[in-house]
């Protein structure tokens, strides 16, 4: 801190006294220090691969195109900055619950699995945390219950898959059915109203003009990004999904890690359950219907490889936002949900086709190189 004080004075002085400035000028050493750090490591927040970043740029392009379409179809609305700001918030709020689920899903898919039970886990956690018995413990008890239920159900998935050696598709499909059944049985097929104002306020309140739900999404995305890109957990996830045999032979406990991935997905579902309960001020066994498909689709659009080993949190987030923007766009224009679903389907196919095309062109290039080196 002692170096910080002379810096502002030294900097303006430098142009006046260039000859005098000694090599020990604190400003200069600071710059040199930054450079050295930059050579050794990229800045902490920067990604490693340019590959994923390029894909994300493509997604931002898609998003921009959607906004242009919106601006063309409703120029009067898009001309009003107030409306635009509110619409952005509306889209983010729309994306928030699925976004949180998608972060967990992204980890599972990168780790070489799939989780079809996320919607069901959200429903079960939502129902469980709104039972009369749980609500007696207040908001804290409800949140704790939702998270615990999410983690535990995820753990059951994980144990079945990694230690019971069930195929992820089958294990989580079974959980999808079973968890919804349990949710219906707990709630007695009734809608359970949440009487906790704290919970209900989460969706209703804004802080600094931004809905709390959006903050939660932001927090989960940032945490997910850090977890994937900056921790051993994330590194193991990529290794386990990219080449499980290599990971195993390198001494990584593949089974335990696979189990933890499903628990993480369950945790995200628990968070999403609280958000969704808060939005509806109630919970029921049919809530979060087909969230698994939205989350998988968003992850795939975001460039997550379904066979594992590759994917980005930012890409998944963009995938979710693109979906929410389409929904929003169709709502503004008063178009039907049917048309909206058709466009969404088309976008999934287009996104995957584009990714495959890139991959193919690369392999073709390699093949061409091989021919030229051979001759």
């Amino acid at each position, binding site marked *: 801190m002692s170096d910080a004080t002379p810096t502002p004075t030294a900097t303006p002085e430098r142009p006046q006294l260039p000859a005098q400035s000694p090599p020990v000028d604190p400003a200069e050493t600071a710059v040199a220090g930054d450079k050295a750090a930059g050579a*050794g*490591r*990229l800045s902490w927040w920067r990604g*490693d*691969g340019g590959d994923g970043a390029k894909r994300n740029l493509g997604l931002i392009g898609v998003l921009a195109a959607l906004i242009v379409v919106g601006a063309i179809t409703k120029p009067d609305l898009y001309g009003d900055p107030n409306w635009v700001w509110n619409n952005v918030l509306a889209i983010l709020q729309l994306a928030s619950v699925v976004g949180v689920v998608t972060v967990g899903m992204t980890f599972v898919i990168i780790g070489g699995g799939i989780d079809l039970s996320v919607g069901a886990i959200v429903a079960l956690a939502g129902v469980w945390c709104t039972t009369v018995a749980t609500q007696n413990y207040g908001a804290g008890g409800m949140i704790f219950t939702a998270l615990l239920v999410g983690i535990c159900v995820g753990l059951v998935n994980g144990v079945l898959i990694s230690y019971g050696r069930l195929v992820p598709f089958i294990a989580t499909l079974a959980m999808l059915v079973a968890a919804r059944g349990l949710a219906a049985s707990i709630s007695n097929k009734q809608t359970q109203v949440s009487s906790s104002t704290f919970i209900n306020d989460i969706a209703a309140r804004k802080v600094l003009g931004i809905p709390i739900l959006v903050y939660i999404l932001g927090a989960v995305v940032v945490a997910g990004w850090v977890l994937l890109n*900056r*921790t*051993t*957990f*994330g*590194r193991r996830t*990529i*290794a386990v999904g*990219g*080449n499980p*045999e*290599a*990971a*195993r*032979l*390198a*001494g*990584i*406990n593949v089974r335990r890690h696979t189990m933890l991935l499903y628990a993480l997905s369950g945790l995200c579902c628990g968070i999403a359950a609280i958000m969704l309960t808060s939005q509806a001020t109630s919970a029921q066994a049919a809530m979060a219907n087909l969230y698994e498909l939205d989350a998988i689709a968003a992850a795939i659009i975001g460039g997550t490889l379904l066979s594992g*080993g*590759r994917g980005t949190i930012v890409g998944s987030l963009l995938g979710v936002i693109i979906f929410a923007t389409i929904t929003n766009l169709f709502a503004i224009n008063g178009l039907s949900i049917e048309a909206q679903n058709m466009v969404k389907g088309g976008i999934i196919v287009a996104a995957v086709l584009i990714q495959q095309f890139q991959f193919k062109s690369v392999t073709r290039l390699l093949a061409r190189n*091989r021919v030229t*080196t*051979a*001759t």
Partner: protein
Amino acid sequence: MALPEDDPATASAEAAAEAPLVEAPADTVAGEVVLRLTDLVKTFPGVRALDGVQLEVRAGEVHCLLGQNGAGKSTLIKVLAGVHQPDSGLVEWRGEPISFANPQAAMRAGIATIYQELDLVEDLSVAENAFLGHEYRRFGFIRRGSMARHTRQILGRLGHGEIPPGRMVRSLPAAGKQIVSMARALSHEARLIIMDEPSAVLAHDEVGNLFRIIRELTAQGIAVIYISHRLEEIREIGDRVTVLKDGRTTAANLPARDTPTRDLVSRMTGRTIEYVFPDHPTDDTAGAELLQVEGLTRTGEFADVSLTVRAGEIVGIAGLVGSGRSELLETIYGARLAEAGTVRMDGKVLRPGVGAAVRAGMGMAPEERKSQALLLGEPIYRNVTLATFGRYARLGFTDAAKERAEADRIAETLELRPRDVDRPVRTLSGGNQQKVVVGRWLLGGTKLLLLDEPTRGVDVGARAELYQVIRSLAAQGVGVLLVSSEVPEVLGLADRVLVMREGRVVREAAAGELDENTVLDLVMAGSLMEGAPA
């Protein structure tokens, strides 16, 4: 083996003399030439896999291909099967120059290949497998009846009319599956059947049956290219032998029955490319016993294997694919569960599991680099630190800068090219990828390195560098257990050599006491002779 093992050359020569000489119609060898290869060349990046192969196969003969691993046999088969296209050279099929654009073309022309890993669909029936890809159809419906009838007929021709065409292939034993593969070849009206080590998957008594079928096929004028490492089989079934070495034909059309073993072996060895091995240390520098393996057994893979590796010592295991050597290595490493026996590191019995082995100071470079060791799309540094990134992490947060620095250091030590550790491993050559795998274990203070075929797919220059790396590791006190199918490599690099055949260690000696021919004789000695009398 009842024969004395200290003189293997004599042993196999005697075995050869005792081999039942079956009436082989010598005149069939005079059948028309169905296949002639002239100066066939095929290169892959960094490797000249075929470098002038000559081959002549006549109708009705069993033509044996002999050569060490890496001699180019597999590439040759794949060229004939239409999987690869040759860069230059002439393929004449029944008198006409021809080139197969794909496997279907080769099959239509009448060349069928039976690979060692049988390419059958396990959950289809025998008939469906036999006619896979060219089913009898009418209006898009499969004519199951006539397919089953034809299949039964073919199976009868093979002397296996008892196999029901409707049976699921999964439920057949290995020998039965091989029959189905042959039925598929015959369903294509094949004029030439290539068999890649067909006896490797068979029990001893089943080999006799295979030979009977081969004789019946050749009696019908079908030519067979037979690939095997077992000299005794070649003597029994073969008519003529062509020997490959380093992608070249070194001897063509030798009589299979009476060419002396020493002649055959010498044509397979004495390579033109001399590998440069680092000098063995002159004095005994090896330290305390690091690894002690006792009575390790896995049924069907290897039995009762005991060995030791001392610190600073390189121990080599010579043996063919299928001799149990890779399985042994993986079991020592904890990647497979031993049924009996113990593995000790530094005198302490290892608990099962790779994690325990790694913690005890073991590291392994597995046989299949790409599928077992590397994350191809990930940068080099992440592959180098795959086993150690947890150690550089603080509170679970990875330290990419430290990892890059460490990987950079390894890249410099191993002379990795290119040096840029942020490139994806996919872009590296085979030799440099192997350096990444070996380098991974240099980081963690590994005491014992298990190397499975470390130079497979590695070009000559990079080989010498890898040998140097391995030797210098040993000089630093690391114990090395090395498995290779290339005998010169084992002899040139290792201090002590174990020879494995069919899951057992048949010989252990200092590297200086063995020569290439002796070891080759040992690893290839006929298994038929052992099993037959029992």
